């Protein structure tokens, strides 16, 4: 690709003679009420390039992508696709023109298998479904792009990484010329990220252009040709990746020099606060989710539990917070046995000092059409501070919400705003504010930085490290090794419901952990 792609024809004619530019966005503006999500955004994507949209949380990347994809209508501005001005009224139009998108939150029908999910909504199948023929087509695509996926399993049983393949296959199946990927690596193991990038490279070879929305600088450096940096809804710059460094991009991204190290003050490791012993549990379908799992979290330490999702982490989380029953084993929370009939419920466990940050914020942690203040007291609404007898004490709740919003820097119109209108990072802050609003002994967090940008991620980590100072212990479940290595003191690896090993974070490298995560190694843990 040459740089003369930037020369536009004069006059009002669309830049149709620019064969090299597959997408041109000009002066796109999108507002939500008083919030300007995209402010006069202009950028263009060259044919056969990987173009990164890099930006902080709330910088307007997802909104911009949605406008391009037709899921959202810009207030003003123009979009040219393949040299033609387009104004999609729905994603359907975009798909027809050859634009595909893989969303940050997947949109799959859980009980249906991959084939059914991929072909849903496609007219090419005619009136009668020929699932066998479609499956063959999809298998061919899988081979072409080196994707190994069990097409007959209900997608709900696939790992998050595999569900993403399904989303990508869906786009490939329709035949896209431009694929938008919204934070695709947020949930992948290092090996999975590599295969994703391999797939992207194959797509580029096939002439497909890719827009990659991300906040991870090393990914930008790894895969992209060009990068457009967004900050607070505005385009800061579009630069070629070559000739830039992580540091130079970071400066553009946050508008100042950014320090990537987590400053971890030395905290004394104290007595055990969470002891999981010989825990065995089953999934809803009766298969074994956890087999004789033993883990110990001490005061003042972060125990990272690494593992590809779907290896029992979700069940472990659910047992710890009290919404799933265990088959056998013991769990002691600061010495109190919690698996007993009388204690094994979310309220009692929370009252004993367990805080939790679930992986899926909007499904497990928050109520989308409740206000910020209503969400901030979810689970705390029985406390005397927020209620008077059988009634709610809205005055006290509002005051508490005001303090939490200030203290946790939650970007919101106010305590009465619907939580569903907040961005991912702010959703996480609402959860954090709620969970640490009373003294806690253990924090169980599942992928706490999933989908968050640098700023929000480091904010979460710094809050976690503050918790350690108070004598709490943290169990952090994650499949993102960046996250695991960032703040863990010790790392346990889970595979197929079993603990494969426990390591001191300072004595182990990512590749080793990756091998244990894949079940290739196992050793006796202490």
């Amino acid at each position, binding site marked *: 690709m040459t740089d003369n792609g930037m020369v*536009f024809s004069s006059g009002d004619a669309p830049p149709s003679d620019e064969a090299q530019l597959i997408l041109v966005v000009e002066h796109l503006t999108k507002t939500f009420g008083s919030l300007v999500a995209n402010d006069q955004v202009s950028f263009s994507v060259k044919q056969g390039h990987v173009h990164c949209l890099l930006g902080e949380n709330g910088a307007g990347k997802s909104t911009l992508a949605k406008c391009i994809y037709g899921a959202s209508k810009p207030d003003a501005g123009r979009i040219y696709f393949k040299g033609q001005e387009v104004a999609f009224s729905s994603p359907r139009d975009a798909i027809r023109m050859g634009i595909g998108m893989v969303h940050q939150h997947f949109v799959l029908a859980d009980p249906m298998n991959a084939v059914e999910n991929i072909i849903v909504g496609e007219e090419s199948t005619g009136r009668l479904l020929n699932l066998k023929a479609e499956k063959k087509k999809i298998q061919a695509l899988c081979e072409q792009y080196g994707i190994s996926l069990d097409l007959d399993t209900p997608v709900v049983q696939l790992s998050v990484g595999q569900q993403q393949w399904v989303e990508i296959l869906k786009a490939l199946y329709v035949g896209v010329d431009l694929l938008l990927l919204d934070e695709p690596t947020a949930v992948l193991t290092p090996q999975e990220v590599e295969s994703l990038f391999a797939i992207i490279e194959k797509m580029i070879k096939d002439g497909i252009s890719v827009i990659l929305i991300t906040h991870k600088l090393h990914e930008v450096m790894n895969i992209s040709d060009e990068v457009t940096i967004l900050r607070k809804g505005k385009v800061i710059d579009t630069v070629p990746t070559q000739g830039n460094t992580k540091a130079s991009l970071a400066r553009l991204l946050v508008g100042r020099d950014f320090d990537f190290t987590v400053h971890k003050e030395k905290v004394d490791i104290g007595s055990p606060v969470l002891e999981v012993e010989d825990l065995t549990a089953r999934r809803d379908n009766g298969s074994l989710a956890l087999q004789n799992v033993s883990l110990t979290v001490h005061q003042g330490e972060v125990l990272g539990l690494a593992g590809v999702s779907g290896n029992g982490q979700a069940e472990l989380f659910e047992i710890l917070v009290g919404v799933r029953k265990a088959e056998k084993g013991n769990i002691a929370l600061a010495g109190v046995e919690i698996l007993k009939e009388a204690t094994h419920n979310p309220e009692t466990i929370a009252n004993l000092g367990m805080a939790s940050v679930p992986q899926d914020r909007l499904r497990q942690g928050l109520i989308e059409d*409740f206000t910020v203040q209503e969400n901030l007291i979810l689970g705390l609404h029985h406390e005397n501070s927020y209620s008077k007898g059988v009634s*709610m004490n809205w005055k006290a709740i509002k005051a508490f919400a005001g303090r939490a919003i200030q203290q946790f820097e939650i970007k919101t119109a106010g305590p009465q705003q619907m939580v569903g209108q907040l961005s991912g990072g702010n959703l996480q802050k609402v959860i954090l504010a709620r969970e640490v609003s009373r003294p806690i002994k253990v924090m169980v967090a599942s992928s706490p930085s999933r989908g968050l940008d640098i700023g929000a991620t480091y904010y979460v980590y710094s809050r976690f490290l503050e918790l350690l100072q108070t004598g709490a212990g943290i169990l952090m479940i994650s499949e993102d090794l960046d996250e695991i290595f960032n703040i863990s003191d010790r790392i346990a690896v889970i595979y197929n419901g079993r603990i494969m090993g426990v390591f001191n974070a300072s004595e182990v490298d990512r590749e080793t952990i990756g091998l244990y995560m894949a079940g290739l190694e196992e050793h006796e843990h202490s």
Partner: protein
Amino acid sequence: MSTVRANQPVVPKLRYRLEKRKESGVLSSLLSILVALVCSFGITYWVITLIGADATTVLWAIVKGSFGTKNAVIDTLIKSTPIFITGLATVVAYRAKVWNIGQEGQLYAGALGVTGVVLLLKDAGLPAWVFIPTLLIVAVLSGALAGAIPGVLKSRYNVNEIIVTVMLNYIVLYLTTYLLGGPWQEVGSHYYNTIRFPDTTNLPLLFGTRLHSGFVIALLLAVLIYYLLWHMKVGYEIRATGSNPTAARFKGIDTRRIILVVMLLSGAISGLAGGLELLGVHHRLVYGFSVSFGFTGILIALLGRLHPLGVAPAAIFFGALHNGSSAMIIHSNVPRELITAIMGFVIIMLLFWEVVFKYRIRRVEDVQ
């Protein structure tokens, strides 16, 4: 790259866009209802003309019949009372996304309970101030019992509440028919009815009119349910369960208990509607005393946007249509069924304009 076109002339161009409102205010909600009413009025006018009647006369007859005189207003309020209460019963259940369709059966259950106790105690000589409260409690308990069956099945075994409540409607209705045709039938009557209840069971009347105190109870109940849903812990849990049962469960709300609570409450309120209707209007159990009060309650709750204070006007409006229909058939040859059709128009229009009003047209200046 963003400055490429900076040198070109800026030609502002006006465009119009349809966009979804983030939040719809109370005002736009009221406006949508107004527009819907005007539209359904227009359709009704056209349909009456189509029948060959004089639309102005017919519509005027309905208005006069429902609000024209003091007595007409009183009758309208009497007719709106039972559907007001079943509407409230619906709000409680649907806020938790528990789809109770059994208001009709629960209302009958309340009426059956009241009748049973009246027949048992009719000669005990209880004073009204003991008898009436006792009977109202019986109505509430009987309704709650009818709600408990689907409630327990749903909360314990996750049995679909829609199927159970619909089937229970039939069971209670046929039980009523059996009782009225047999053991409870008034001796010598050719109709399906019991004896007249003793006068000590009559609800106190208001302002020296036929309006019974059931209407006031309905109003109080609306305020109570508003308070319950938005100011009580259990109401918070009900709304949380309805909006996101998973998150509610993760944060310690016993959603199974809430499902049961909601079915009990909804049944109890419907049962109360049945009891009040007997003690305030009919003074005996008679076949067909409920003109689909339970089902109308569902419509009213939906029209009132599942808000207790929205249910009140919706119920009075439907009560007025019911009441006006009597005047209409006296003053014209338009069939009574027209009223049902009007209700249909109103509902369709309300739902239609509710959606339309979720969007707004915005004039945008397209800077180019």
